[in-house]
């Protein structure tokens, strides 16, 4: 029998299924802007007024920091603010 018959190849193909797309997108988007998110959160921790403004309009705060406010980035920032 051939070592790589159809059954074996199928098994090996199935061994690498795609990761959930949302995970992939987050991994593509978050690491490059992580530093800027850290800065925003740190500033919010130190300045209650800024924190209020940030929470009131996350998109504007991100844009002001030079970060595209995609849904994944917004979620990541919300999570960080919630977990401060």
């Amino acid at each position, binding site marked *: 029998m051939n070592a790589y018959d159809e059954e074996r*190849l199928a098994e090996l193909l*199935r061994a690498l299924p795609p990761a*959930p797309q949302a995970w*992939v997108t987050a991994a*593509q988007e*978050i690491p490059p802007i992580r530093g800027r998110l850290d800065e925003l959160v740190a500033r919010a921790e130190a300045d209650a007024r800024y924190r209020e403004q940030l929470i009131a309009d996350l998109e504007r705060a991100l844009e002001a920091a030079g970060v595209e406010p995609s849904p994944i980035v917004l979620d990541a920032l919300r999570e960080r603010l919630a977990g401060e």
Partner: protein
Amino acid sequence: MRFYGLMSSPLPTDAELVARCRAGDQDAWRELVERFSRYVYAIAVQVYRLSEPDAEDVFQEVFTRVYERLGQLRDDGAVRPWIAQLTRRCCVDRLRQGVRVELIEELEAGEADDSLDQLEEAWGVREALGELSGPCQEVLDRFFTRDESYRTIGAALEIPAGTIASRISRCLAQLRDRYEGRIQERAPSGGRIR
């Protein structure tokens, strides 16, 4: 999803991709994540049997570390074993946090090595898949890794569903030839990921 055969130019090597990432090329970073996402996912879920929430945390942690530590990589061409090592460490840390001691013992007794060897082989097959025509890559990927039905594949690719089985068989034969050819051409690749 990107298929090699559908590309107008050849995909960059791992080393080229790493060099571009290090130079701040965001498109390269996206490509790197896309390229290794299945691999990291498979190690977390299949080898270390993490729950989906734990696997997601590990997945994000691994790529964050990769991004932050690319400058420490000594051999750009060895990025995949390096990513595998980072993933293993993150998975073990996660298991320890969850006090899944029995599972850690099982994995340390050799189960992880067997699973990782299987993933190495699967990676080789996937690379061979990338050398097939775009339609072959697509039909095999949709059927075997995305679990799509003949009907779904037929609708997506605008081909009669009744021809899918024969296409799969033909493409698998091409894949086997390509993969076995690769094995004969080169020494076993890069070694084990541990």
